[in-house]
Each structure stands twice: as structure tokens, then as C-alpha cells.
């Protein structure tokens, strides 16, 4: 028991590295918020563009969404992080992580919101157009609010799954929770920093997971 505590909850190691892991928490939170906001806004915008049914544009959007849904994010992260410098483009590891995860989330969000747009009954378009609202006005004021409401549960789940991928940043040296913890672990030769990191992730994401579970039951109720 004592050996277990010494290995995973070593007081001295925890005290020493808690501040740097706390810094990592802020990096993770900041990156997550930025990724969620820009990814969902970007995905919804692409889904709206697709609603205009301009063939070449829709095809490009579908190809983009398919590719970023099919490729493992870690492959994209390594490709951009190690590939771009060879072209003389230098991006910080945090920027690369932000860009890639935003693009990945936007790809999923586009597909999800598009499914929502197509699920809104045709009568809603007709009713709105019959009162003189234009296509774009109808899309923004009548269709999109209903579409987003329909897809809030899958969108939330996807957003959580992708913000958890900020941990991948550790591979390219982003000082997020996992990055700080692995550094601390190799200096301290002790597993406590990893345990602290795991606890930090649980504290951050468990409420979100429970929230998404609540959303699912709420939005599954009929008439909403």
C-alpha cells in the first residue's frame, strides 16, 4: 500500500510538479475552447454553404469533410508539424495542434449540421418563403436554429471527443496537461505526475461527459 502511494501519489513529487501541470490545464482549456468555437462555427458555415447546392462547391466540401473524418488526427498533426518547416513555414506546436483539431472538428460538425439541415421538413422552407423571406434569410432564421437543435447531442459528443485529442499535442511538444506530466515524469522517475494528469482530465471532462448524457435524454424527449 505504501509503495503504491509512493509511486502514484508521492507528496513531494506532486507538490513539486503540480504548478507546471496546472499551467498545462490552462493550455488544455484554452486550446479546447478555441477549437470548439472555431470548429463548430466553421462546420456550421460549411453546412450552410452546402445548402445552396452549388455542385462544385458542395463536392469540395464533401471531399474535405470525408478526408478529415477518415484520416487519424495524429497523422495530420505529424504531417503538418514536420512537413511545413521543409517548405520554410514555421508554426508553433500549439498552432499546429489548434489548426488540425479545428479542421477535424469542422469536418465532423459540417456532416452533423448538414444532416440536421436536411432533417428539417420541407414545409418549413415553404412557409418561410411564402411570407417573403429569401433563401438566405430562411436558412439563417428558420432552418439553422431547428437543425442545430436537432443535432446538439451528437455535436456535443463529437466536440468532447475532439477536445480530448488535445492530449495528442504531447507528441509534438505542446505544454498541455499530458505534455507537462510526461516531462515531469521523466525528471522525477515517478508515476505521480501521470496520475495527477489523469485526475486533471477526469475533473475536466467527466462533467462534460455527464452533461452530454443529460443532453441526450433531454433532447430524446418527444415534442422538443
Amino acid at each position, binding site marked *: 500500500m505504501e509503495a503504491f502511494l509512493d509511486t502514484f501519489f508521492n507528496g513531494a513529487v506532486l507538490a513539486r510538479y503540480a504548478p507546471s501541470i496546472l499551467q498545462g490545464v490552462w493550455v488544455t482549456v484554452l486550446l479546447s475552447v478555441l477549437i470548439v468555437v472555431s470548429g463548430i462555427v466553421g462546420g456550421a458555415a460549411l453546412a450552410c454553404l452546402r445548402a445552396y447546392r452549388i455542385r462544385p462547391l458542395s463536392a469540395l466540401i464533401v471531399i474535405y469533410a470525408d478526408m478529415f473524418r477518415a484520416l487519424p488526427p495524429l497523422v495530420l498533426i505529424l504531417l503538418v508539424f514536420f512537413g511545413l518547416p521543409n517548405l520554410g513555414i514555421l508554426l508553433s506546436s500549439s498552432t499546429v495542434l489548434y489548426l488540425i483539431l479545428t479542421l477535424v472538428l469542422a469536418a465532423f460538425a459540417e456532416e452533423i449540421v448538414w444532416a440536421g439541415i436536411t432533417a428539417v421538413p420541407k414545409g418549413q422552407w415553404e412557409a*418561410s418563403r411564402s411570407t417573403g423571406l429569401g433563401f438566405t434569410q430562411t436558412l439563417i432564421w428558420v432552418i439553422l436554429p431547428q437543425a442545430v437543435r436537432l443535432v446538439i447531442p451528437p455535436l456535443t459528443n463529437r466536440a468532447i471527443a475532439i477536445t480530448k485529442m488535445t492530449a495528442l499535442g504531447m507528441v509534438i511538444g505542446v505544454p498541455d496537461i499530458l505534455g507537462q506530466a510526461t516531462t515531469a515524469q521523466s525528471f522525477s522517475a515517478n508515476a505521480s505526475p501521470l496520475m495527477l494528469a489523469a485526475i486533471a482530465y477526469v475533473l475536466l471532462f467527466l462533467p462534460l461527459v455527464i452533461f452530454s448524457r443529460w443532453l441526450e435524454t433531454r433532447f430524446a424527449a418527444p415534442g422538443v
Partner: protein
Amino acid sequence: MTQAAQEAVAPPTLVVRGLRKSFGSEEVLQGIDLTVARRELVFVLGPSGSGKSTMLRCCNRLEEPDAGEITLEGDPVTGPKVDVNQLRRRMGMVFQAFNLYPHLSALSNVTLALRKVRGLPRPEAEAMGLTALDRVGLKAKAASYPAHLSGGQQQRVAIARALALEPSVMLFDEPTSALDPELVGDVLAVMQDMKAQGMTMLVVSHEMKFARDAADRVIFMDAGRIVEQGTPEQIFETPHHERTQTFLARFSGRG
């Protein structure tokens, strides 16, 4: 000029000439000619598949006509240069399935087009919206969402949504067909009241009693053409055409 004289020289509210529309190889409208005068209530009758709804939907171009000419108060509805959104504002439409916006309250359903199409500021739009809801007897439900309204109430809100834009003509596409029988009366009462206030109306419906009570003219359509038209008495008591007779015979004892 007196009001009567003004009305005499003003063009009819809605004029349809030679309207044709096909879906694939099937021609559902085979040349429709129809005039709706100001303050007139024209009631359109016919078996399902006769093209009634398509004709109505062509009037505000929810369906694009293949051929023919439509004018609203003398202004062209068809043609490439027409601002279809401005015209639709002047033609209210009521749907069989209500099509209320589920994410908006009754009042917001009514005010959306006032704000976004007519560009009214919110307080003004809401004042007009409340007046419109009052006309259909639902001012008290202004804050309710569609999911919390009965079918009849939803349809009356949908009527208010169209009325609030102060249209020149109201198009009704089987407004009571999706309602439980006990809820039909309230909607018809609202329509009768609109007629009494002088609204011009084109109504596709199967409510024969309403046609007898409120219609100025009844049109019988079959297979994409207008077969027969006249006053309710003429059509219901002494129909000339054989197809009108068979259709009405099937409906006798109902409505």
C-alpha cells in the same frame, strides 16, 4: 373618386392566364384561367390529384409554372425580373400542415417576416403581431410555443402569420384537412370572419358547408382543368357537368 368607383377601375386582385405545370411526364395543370376579384372568396373543389394545390402553389411560385401568366393587382408575378419575395409578402399562404416554426413562440412566428422582410423594428412588429393574433382569438397564447398549442390553435397562428403582413390575397391549401373534426370549427370561424372584413381569399378545401356559407364563387377542378364554376347554389344544387355530379354525390352526407 368614391371607394366603389376606385374599386371599379382597379385591376382584379389575382389573375391567372393559361397556367400549365408538369411533374415529369404528367401534366397536372393543363391551362388554368382564373380571376379573383377584390374582396371575393373563391372556393376550389375537386378530387385529389386534380391539381388544386399545385395551382395554388403556382400563384406564389412555390411551384414554378411551366407556362402562363399570373398578375397580382396588375403587377406581374411570373417573369424573370420579378422580386418574388416582395410579391409573396402580398400573398398570404396557409398550409395543410400549418408549418409553424417550432423553435419560435407564436408571436415570433408572426413577427419574423415583419422584421426581416418588411424591416420593421421589433416593438412595431410585435404590436402588429399581437393585433394579428388578436384577430384569430389567440392574443393570450402569444408566448406559447407551437408544441404547446392544439392543431386548431396552430393553424390559427399560421393564419395570423400570413395576415400580419397585410396581404392583398390569402391562399388556403386545405387548411382544415389535418385537423381533428372538433377543431375544424374554430379555424373556419376565423376564415369566415376574415371574409366578413373584406379579405380576398382563394380557398382549396373539402369543407362544403363553409363553401355554401361563405364562398362567392365555387370552382370545380378535375384532371388539371377547371370543369365548372358558379355560385355555391349553382354548383351544389344544379351542377351541369357529369364529373361535378359524381364528385358531389360521393360527398353528400358529409360536411
